[in-house]
């Protein structure tokens, strides 16, 4: 029966392993990107990255990703908790309603924020009608943060929700029987049990957040070059595949480190709902 896996193993080899090896190869060489034989081994690409300008970009990406993750956690946990406490029928509907926007095209939804946040957009039109000064809501880092939280919030809510829902009600009853009040039940029983969900959520938000380039490009007016933007630029505009590959490797390593840190808490590697974006 195990022979059935072999076709896929070959597929993995061709479409996942070899491409990554190619990227590694590009990262450690310099030369004309299109002329394979002219490559020379070099650490230049990495050296070039480890200069203030580019490290700042990495820092900015990590910073934004961290803040979005924390915001998603702060906003998402209560939401997951409230929905999980509802009766089965109602909470199924509610969680479904949470998921539906995820099925709409993510570019469209991000782009719709332009209509809301623009200088003459909907929010400002309402604000000025009430009599306030229009706000500057677009093409700045707040807009980028908003875009990230908006896109990734469901990825935080879903794992936490699915863990909360599976908590054995008997445990809560037992705690209450032993005299615990609501706060203690939460802090000593519910919260600790929900940590695997939190960890999954953090992973599923942080990774796309640190590598996105679309949100920063659409909502940030191309002013917030994140590492994703840098990689995209090297491969699309500049054609310097070597530099782009080295940054991809750095990004991957970064993410692997993050995964290693969070996997200490996450014993259940079933993948949950998958990284839908």
């Amino acid at each position, binding site marked *: 029966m195990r022979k059935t896996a072999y076709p896929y193993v070959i597929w993995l080899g061709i479409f996942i392993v070899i491409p990554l090896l190619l990227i590694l190869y590009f990262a450690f060489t310099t030369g004309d*990107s*299109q002329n394979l034989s002219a490559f020379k081994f070099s650490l230049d690409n990495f050296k070039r990255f480890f200069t203030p*300008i*580019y490290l*700042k*970009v990495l820092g900015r990406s990590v910073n934004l990703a961290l803040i979005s993750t924390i915001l998603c956690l702060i906003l998402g946990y209560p939401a997951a908790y409230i929905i999980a406490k509802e009766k089965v029928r109602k909470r199924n509907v509610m969680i479904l309603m949470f998921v539906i926007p995820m099925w709409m095209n993510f570019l469209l939804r991000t782009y719709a924020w332009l209509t809301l946040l*623009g*200088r*003459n957009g909907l929010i400002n039109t309402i604000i000025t009608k009430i009599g306030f000064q229009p706000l*500057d809501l677009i*093409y700045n880092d707040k807009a980028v943060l908003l875009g990230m939280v908006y896109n990734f919030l469901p990825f935080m809510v879903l794992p936490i929700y699915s863990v909360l829902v599976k908590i054995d009600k008997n445990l809560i009853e037992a705690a209450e029987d032993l005299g615990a009040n609501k706060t203690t039940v939460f802090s000593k029983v519910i919260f600790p049990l929900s940590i695997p969900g939190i960890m999954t959520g953090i992973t599923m938000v942080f990774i796309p957040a640190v590598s996105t380039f679309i949100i920063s490009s659409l909502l940030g*007016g*191309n*002013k917030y*070059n994140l590492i994703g*933007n*840098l990689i995209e*630029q*090297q491969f*699309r*505009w*500049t*054609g*310097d595949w070597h530099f782009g590959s080295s940054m991809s490797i750095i990004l991957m390593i970064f993410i692997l480190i993050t995964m290693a840190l969070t996997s200490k808490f996450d014993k259940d590697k079933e993948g949950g709902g998958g990284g839908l974006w």
Partner: protein
Amino acid sequence: MRNRLIVLALILTMMVTVLAGCGEKKPSINVYNWGDYIDESVLEDFEKEYGIKVNYSTFATNEDLYVKLKQGGESFDVIFPSDYMIERMIREGMLAKIDMNNIPNIKNIDEDFMNLDYDPNNEYSVPYMWGTVGIVYNKTMVDDVVDSWDILWNEKYKDQIIMLNSQRDTIAVALLKLGYSLNSRNIDELEAAKQELLKQRPLVWAYQGDEVKDTMVGGEAALAVVWSGDAVAMMRENPDLDYAIPKEGTNLWFDSMVIPANAKNKEGAELFINFLCRPDIAARNADYIGYSTPIPEAVDMLPEEIRNSKVAYPSDEFLDSIKLEVFKDPMDIITEYDRIWTEVMSGQ
């Protein structure tokens, strides 16, 4: 029963895929052009007249185009690079010579646009559109006189300024502001330009491409660097807008149609190029996109307001009075341009 349905579905899907592939048997050309740079109904007319399907896709900057071509994996039959990019592509052997006998309509093009520096014997390119670069501004939002690139560094207009998301054009603005040539190959001058752009960053609201049209028409910003054709299109939709060419000088540019060396349908390409040089077709394009056509007969066919537009068709005296530079291929210094642009875009 259910199994049979699944098998049927699989067969149907496979048939659809095969048919989708087969549908490509009709002769076709792959055209790669700037975004918003043609009247799409023109493509339909071409297909009807010649029975050749046009696979049309767009790029945003010359650098995009170059990288796409260099990376290979896709062959195009007609592309629309600008002056300096044509120079570079000729030098690198990326273009095929065009048999001008197959382009009889080339006689419609004004002498002034033939045999330009980037293609001295006019063997590789046929002019498509031309124009200038300048500042489009909202008269109700700007009370200073707009006559110098300096205004884009004026603190008063913080967050009201839009720069082009295009490497050479934006670096050129900084170079011109400092009084240098926009074809500078002097690394000190380039670094100085970079510093200027980094200094300007806090004042820039966004670096935009085609979106700039909507932004300015919607009155969301006061000043933007744009190509002349876009200015014409914008001014048509918002009468509060005006266009000015700064006194330090600006870029005069030409976009031409060329055929890449690895084109699969050279014949179709030449038919297409010839088609676009027909005065009525050129007029339709020029009218729709607002840019300036090098075909005098087509200009005559344009509606009065665009024909007489000083933005689209500035007078010869005006053109002579201002320092106009055409971009040249930066050659080896291109890596410095790339590096500087990446650093400007990554700045704080």
